[in-house]
């Protein structure tokens, strides 16, 4: 017979293991701050934080396309952008973009996950 006491202990153990794994995920997923010039093929599939000026931007369907410029340029995309994303990403606005570096048609691009205005 399994007593309630042991069920509670098993549940608590799950919670502790879950908390440890959450720390592991946070460490794994933590993005590193970089300038656009530092992004090369070695940064592929890595998550980065980039602060730059929006050089151009347009929305097509469910995707927001924009170019970031901090002295070097990189193309960026945001899938299913929210109203706030479209508000932040306007020409000459300064933004902080968190996203993954990927390759598209031979060039690097930033697949944005989070867009915030630069302070």
């Amino acid at each position, binding site marked *: 017979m399994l007593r309630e006491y042991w069920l509670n202990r098993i549940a608590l153990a*799950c919670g502790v293991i879950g908390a440890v794994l959450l720390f592991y995920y946070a460490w794994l997923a933590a993005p590193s701050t970089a300038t656009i010039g530092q992004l090369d093929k070695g940064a592929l599939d890595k998550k980065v934080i980039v602060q730059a000026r929006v050089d151009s931007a347009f929305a097509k369907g469910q995707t927001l396309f924009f170019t970031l410029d901090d002295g070097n340029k990189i193309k960026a995309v945001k899938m299913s952008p*929210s109203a706030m994303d479209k508000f932040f990403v306007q020409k000459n606005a300064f933004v902080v973009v968190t996203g993954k570096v990927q390759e598209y048609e031979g060039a690097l691009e930033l697949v944005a996950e989070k867009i915030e205005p630069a302070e």
Partner: protein
Amino acid sequence: MIELLLFVFLGCVLGVFTGLTPGIHSNTVSFLVLAFGFSGSIELAAMFVAMGVTQSFVDFIPNIIFGAPDSESFIGMLPGHRLLVKGEGMKAVGLATAGCLFGGIGAILLAGTFMNFVSGILFFLPKIIPAALALVLFSMVLSEKGTRKKAFSALVISLSALVGVAVLTLGQGGGNTGNSLMAPITGFFAISTLVYSICSGTSLKRQEVKKISLPGKKIMVGSLLGIAGASAVSILPGVGASEAAFIIRKAVGKIGTGTYLVLIGAISTANIIFSLFVLLAAGKTRTGIAAIVKVLAVPQPEMLWLFISVSLIAMAFAALATFALAKFFLEKIRFLPYGKVNVAVLLFLALVVLAFNGFYGLAVMGVSACIGLIAVTEKVKRSHCMAFLMVPTILIYLAM
């Protein structure tokens, strides 16, 4: 990190609220979030995962104690109510909770294997589902003893199937959403039980809430069957936790009430966790939670650790909360006249159906309740009313 933990905790609290409140589902809350245009938020995705897992545990409290079913695990109401009337309501909730806990643990341990086989299962399983469901329908009639019972069983199945087709394919807000299922589920399984309890003067025996012990073998068997069922449910559109539990019970043969409750619990929680793995492996969404997560955050391989960790934390919170809340409600319910509690729950459910589905829903609920009462008074299994889900599912798969 702290922000992520806070969102997970908030998700757990919301899960308790959506679990305890009939008619309020995690999908309902998610509509509000999406309406505000949130996206690109891992924290919100984690909150919804925590909410969904917690709800799968806490759902069993209104299900078993108050006879107020939800759209996923409503089939647990019947065996749970049987134990409640015998004074073993805490045991019923305990068995379901144990199923949820071990089902979730099993799903997490099988993450790698499951994700490797998702594509193969996606190809193979939809081909056999219509035949399997049709076979179960025939066996439901044959399982009754005597010509009279077989005839009434066929009648209940046919009428339930008609209600299901009318509501799910032709009715308002059609499709297998939580709210469109609420009226028939409430009618078939809740209102018919409540009316019968009120008319027959059913009273509750004193509930044993202290120091419950649960049969280990039943938990193990029920959890293993539940994990297997959940792996199919998380992939197949149109097949819910209750349907899967019902099919497994028919396929395996005699399963005791206790094992059945564990099975339903295991399927409920493991289904949510497996559906997140399906999202990562194949990009497909089969639960509301997976659909919300896909909108909120672009699925990435490392999110596997997020899903696992949040699920484990939510399972811990939910198991402890479910035990505490069940004890609280069971200790309070013994001071109340059970007949009046039933009347209050009946009126509350009618109001909820009216609020979400209007007078049309109320009419569906009434018709479903009458069909459920036919089953009760003619002493055929009320689970035959499951035809309201199974026949539309067969039609959907044949049309694919």
